């Protein structure tokens, strides 16, 4: 539960910071009059909403990672079924695609801020293209692993790989739907200012999914027995 504990500790820290802003030590029964709400966030509701959603989605992925690591460290169950999945080389390429996708959306975000509609459109198309290529690449990785005998029912390590990459892919598909809706607005001739918030939300979501992928990819690499340092993560998991 170490990954989950770390993630929830971070969420709790944000909540604690926010609570402190709410003047929770005041004595409201002594205060009359229309006082301002010092702690109310000035961000748009949609952005706060996305933040809350990312906390939920983050918890979800942290739980998957925790389950993955807990299962990995149950020695009484490990022989002979836990066979760590070797990370296919294409995953490096896929990682690059997702980085570019995220970068393209960041570019679109900057263009929207500078009110350049053409830049926004280009960023959206490139970002979506790289995201679709990433998804296709993940499917190829599935095929390669399947061909190498690491199919879903082969052992729990393989099952975790399919599960986590699958859930990540579904999240990306959901993001693409939102991106599509934003793109539709952009092509309808809406101004860059009006679309700015949507683009920002998409870009933040993309960065989040990139981060999730990097964490999982890192986990895979560190637990791949054919690579040096594979014992490190197991050691840390064991300690925690």
């Amino acid at each position, binding site marked *: 539960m170490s990954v989950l504990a770390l993630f*929830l500790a971070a969420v709790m820290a944000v909540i604690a910071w926010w609570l402190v802003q709410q003047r929770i030590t005041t004595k409201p029964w002594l205060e009359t009059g229309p006082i301002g*709400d010092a702690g109310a966030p000035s961000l748009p509701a949609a952005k706060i909403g996305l933040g809350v959603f990312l906390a*939920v989605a983050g918890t979800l992925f942290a739980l998957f990672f925790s389950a993955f690591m807990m299962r990995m460290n149950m020695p009484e169950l490990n022989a002979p079924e836990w066979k760590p999945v070797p990370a296919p080389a294409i995953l490096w390429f896929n990682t690059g695609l997702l980085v570019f996708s995220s970068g393209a959306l960041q570019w679109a975000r900057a263009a929207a801020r500078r009110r350049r509609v053409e830049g926004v459109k280009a960023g959206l198309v490139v970002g979506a293209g790289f995201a679709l290529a990433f998804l296709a690449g993940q499917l190829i990785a599935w095929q390669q692993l399947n061909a190498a005998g690491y199919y879903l029912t082969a052992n729990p390590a393989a099952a975790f790989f399919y599960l986590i990459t699958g859930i990540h892919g579904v999240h990306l598909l959901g993001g693409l739907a939102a991106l599509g809706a934003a793109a539709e607005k952009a092509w309808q001739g809406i101004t860059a200012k009006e679309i700015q918030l949507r683009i920002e939300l998409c870009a933040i979501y993309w960065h989040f999914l990139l981060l999730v992928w990097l964490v999982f990819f890192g986990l895979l690499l560190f637990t791949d027995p054919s690579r040096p340092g594979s014992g490190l993560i197991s050691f840390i998991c064991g300690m925690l």
Partner: protein
Amino acid sequence: MVEIRVDGAIPAAEVPDVELYHAKSWITKYVFCQDAKVIAIQYSLTAMGIGLVALVLSWLIRLQLAFPGTLSLISPEAYYQFITMHGMIMVIYLLTALFLGGFGNYLIPLMVGARDMVFPYVNMLSYWVYLLAVLILVASYFVPGGPTGAGWTLYPPQAILAGTPGRDWGIILMLSSLILFIIGFTMGGLNYVVTVLQGRTRGMTMMRLPLTVWGIFSATVLALLAFPALFVACVMMLLDRLLGSSFFMPAIVQAGEHLSYEGGSPILFQHLFWFFGHPEVYIVALPAFGIVSDLISTHARKNIFGYRMMVWAIVAIAVLSFIVWGHHMYISGMNPMFGFFFATSTLIIAVPTAIKVYNWVLTLWRGNIHLTVPMLFAIGFIVTFVNGGITGLFLGNVIVDVPLSATMFVVAHFHMVMGIAPILVVFGGIYHWYPKITGRMLNDTLGRIHFWITFLGAYAIYFPMHYLGFIGVPRRYYELGETAFVPPSAAALNVFITVAALIVGAAQIIFFFNLVWSFYKGKLAGSNPWRATTLEWQTPETPPGHGNWGKELPVVYRWAYDYSVPGAEQDFLPQNQPSKGPSRQAAPV
């Protein structure tokens, strides 16, 4: 004497007054409606409808326990299906949905002074996904093999193995339904949280919020962080069942046949399930805590004692509830050091909880107590919650839990603390807010009859059940048969409990009759029949119109508990009453 008065220019609202969604047809006004008040009623009616199914199931369970073998329709398989469905419906589809989807949707926008939730469309979707989840759950009664009989905890490996009722379809529908429920709840939960954060009207600081909102808000945050664990567990078990993966399934030899599973960990499921399961107790309890605080303060005409402590206690309970899940797993073979940790953290939760109980009692102390029906239910809650909480101290200790685990004592404990206690608050809340929702009062006499039968009947059911647990009567057994250590008198006690359960269940007809009858014939309520301070009672129309507030949003000048302020003309000062006039004074320093 120190008096603090914060006058000055009214700051701008945190969010600009948004343009409201307006229904264009009957369908979008009453069916696919985006108004939180309508969604609240949809949630509540659906939850109560499915709750009635669970009530009937509990009758059947009790009939089997009291008169084993008498009713031919209750086979062992059917019995396990009854207990599974009863538990899951009550915890998830009734209580969670009713407190957060029902009370949350109705009260949050009104109490914080907003026109609606911040994302009304997503809010509407939330209800329809919830309804779909309920329908899928109900559908499991109509598939071959019927619903799952794996127990409400759905523990693998037995949940998906042949021999468990509903193994073919029931478990698939149950897991799918739970996944949908969580998706639907997340949509609603985003609304509840962001509306509290962003939708508050001018002057409504967090520390001026009624405790009802604090309770629902904290429970929602808790649920948003805890439900993903159930989601993960359901997805993984669904893959084990449908695609043959082995997340939770170890190598199994069944009836001489080696199954294809190997290498999974059933304990991993238990961790995931209880990482959700324990916060779930507080997802149900925190809204109840909040609502009861407001009921007691209003009906005792006294400000809530220790408001700040109440808020801090809610937050502390919410945080602590994430580190106690292991106390559900003492007998899973965990490391004894973990048992020590979880027992300690469990007992620590008693501290903020006790603070709340003391504060409720001190609010009542020398209050001008009106024994209205909502107040009766609120006091009934306090007593019941204390009773259930005390048996929780027994079960929180590893050494006491081990012999009591899987006995009727556990059943009695959790029914008192998270069954009866929150349901008493649900009733109290409905009797309290029904006049705002419909414009008419519920019938008082029927309400009192309903309260006394329900309250005394619940004790007739669960007090003896503790004793059954002490003498070792196990839970989950289809029938006891002849057991050396269980005296024959246990059977007589079981009959007594069943008769009480049948009466309590039937008494709920009074409540539902009252709901319907009063809707047409009840006494007109006026806008603020309880003379309460919080904003929902200050709306220009009753029931509140679309947009809640007419042209201008209310401005908040004081906290939610200005009752019986010395020198005031009336014994309550609404939150939106301007600050001229009396105010509380700090005690001499």
